């Protein structure tokens, strides 16, 4: 049996934890750069504010209904998420952390009759210890656990749902609500007369394999109760690392764009080093805003690095060379991004025959390790490369409505009276 634990409106719940005055009030959380709505409390959902809608479209509605609007505070959400996951792991060591607010648990060691009390206890512990409400769905497969969670949240409106007789429910679940089926497949399935999850479960494996692919065919098996997807205990090291953010204001000049790009490179290299990888491939992209009526230009270019590296300085140097090729004056740029690819574990790193002629390779490891250690200990960007820019930067993201980092910064602790 699998259980899916999913925090209810996670970001909104995090914002409420230190703000009891927000209980029962509508809350929305905006994406990076305050662009779109990425989380809504139930009260905000009831006002008809859609997921992923651009903020400017609902600004009036938010003002009218006194919706509390927050920029995303990933420091806070990340800390609270780690606490929830630690508690879950103590209650069940077979865990796959699926996203910031979801985890699969394999619960075969629990007696079947004991599953509901066990899940209710987990739910209560997390609510009391961290203050975050979660829903737990239990089923024979991961896909059924997802369905059970959906039923718990949207139909039963109770914290735990055990799907021991899925047939009763599956006909009530629209096919595009099933895990892994997006809007596009949903439309295609509906066109073929497969409207709900039960119909998908009844569709023959070979038919789905032929008309779609093996992933969807497996999803149908999983809906029948045949487990095809195992728990992925350890997250695989990433094969690609992307760092890309839109600018706070549109940028025209080369220098601020290069600074933003350097900052993204430094972030990507830091991530690369935490997974002890080295990258062989570097890709840079530059974009104007597709949604504006301005002149459009979306160039990008990738290169194979001369040696596999995790050195921020080397990556920044090459990324800036690429940017030099891509950049053309006269456009209002919206976004710059970097991707590191062809990543391998550092132990297998092969030195190029020419590497001894590159002075930065000698001191690279201790220097980068020291950089990461200082920034981890004293906060991000305590020390950084000059390429990332020293003055106040207009390309920095807007996050005007961010709540304090209540759990990670001494200056930002919640006040009690």
């Amino acid at each position: 049996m699998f259980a899916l634990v999913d925090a209810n409106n996670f970001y909104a719940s995090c914002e409420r934890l230190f703000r009891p005055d927000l209980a029962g009030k509508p809350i929305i959380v905006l994406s990076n750069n305050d662009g779109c709505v990425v989380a809504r409390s139930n009260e905000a959902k009831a006002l008809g504010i859609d997921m992923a809608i651009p903020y400017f479209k609902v600004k009036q509605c938010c003002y009218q209904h006194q919706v509390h609007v927050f920029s995303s505070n990933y420091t806070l959400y990340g800390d609270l998420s780690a606490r929830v996951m630690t508690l879950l792991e103590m209650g069940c060591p077979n865990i796959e952390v699926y996203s910031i607010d979801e985890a699969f648990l394999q619960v075969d060691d629990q007696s079947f009759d004991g599953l509901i009390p066990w899940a209710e206890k987990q739910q209560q512990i997390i609510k009391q210890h961290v203050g975050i409400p979660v829903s737990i769905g239990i089923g024979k497969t991961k896909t059924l656990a997802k369905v059970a969670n959906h039923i718990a949240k949207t139909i039963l409106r109770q914290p735990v749902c055990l799907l021991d007789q899925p047939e009763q429910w599956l006909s009530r679940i629209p096919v595009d609500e099933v895990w892994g089926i997006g809007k596009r497949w949903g439309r295609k399935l509906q066109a073929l007369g497969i409207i709900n999850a039960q119909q998908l479960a009844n569709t023959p494996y070979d038919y789905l394999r032929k008309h779609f692919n093996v992933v969807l065919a497996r999803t149908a098996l999983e809906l029948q109760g045949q487990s095809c997807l195992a728990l992925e205990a350890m997250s695989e090291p990433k094969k690609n690392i992307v760092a890309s953010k839109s600018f706070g204001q549109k940028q025209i000049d080369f220098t601020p764009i290069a600074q933003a790009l350097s900052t993204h490179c430094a972030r990507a290299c830091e991530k690369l080093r935490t997974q002890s990888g080295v990258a062989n491939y570097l890709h840079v992209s530059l974009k104007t805003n597709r949604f504006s009526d301005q002149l459009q230009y979306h160039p990008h270019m990738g290169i194979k690095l001369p040696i596999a590296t995790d050195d921020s300085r080397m990556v920044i140097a090459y990324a800036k060379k690429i940017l030099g090729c891509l950049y053309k004056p006269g456009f209002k740029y919206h976004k710059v991004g970097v991707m590191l690819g062809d990543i391998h574990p550092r132990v297998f790193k092969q030195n190029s025959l020419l590497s001894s002629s590159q002075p930065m390779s000698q001191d690279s490891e201790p220097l980068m390790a020291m950089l990461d250690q200082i920034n981890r200990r004293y906060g991000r960007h305590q020390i950084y490369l000059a390429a990332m820019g020293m003055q106040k930067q207009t390309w920095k993201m807007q996050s005007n409505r961010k709540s304090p980092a209540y759990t990670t910064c001494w200056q930002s602790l919640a006040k009690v009276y």
Partner: protein
Amino acid sequence: MTPNHGGKRDNAGRPKGQGPHGESTKPIRIPLSRVEAVKQFIRTGRTIRIPLYSNSIPAGFPSPADDHIENHLDLNDYLVQNPSSTFMVRAVGDSMIGAGIHSGDVLVVDRAITPTNGKVVIAAVDGELTVKRLEIHQDHLCLIAENPKYPPIRVSESQDAVIWGVVTNVIHAV
């Protein structure tokens, strides 16, 4: 009997050393309470602690203190029993001065502890977080300030009040 079935298959499975650690790994038993510390150690490569004794050892002459180094002092061990449920908040005002809580002090709050009669708690009353001593009566709760200037807050069923967590320690700079 089919001798070709079952048992070990040579070269089966993923090659060693391709996981997130980039080298071969082995399972070990760890006390549950130390799991986080070990994970932290693996993530950061090391932890920094202040040794109780620090001795340079003269060659050939063992320090008499060596046998007595038992532990390192870590304030987290002393102040935090349950890391997942422990939060820090800052006290403002003098309503709990009698309990040794001054304005500006950092309070260590553990949400895992059951709020019982007499505990100093953080409560959410009328949308605000407040620190008071909890008194549990048969039909209601009372939140008592440790300062005669502040009247007790009587919490009835209808009133919007939630016990947020139990204060375990006060960190006060002198």
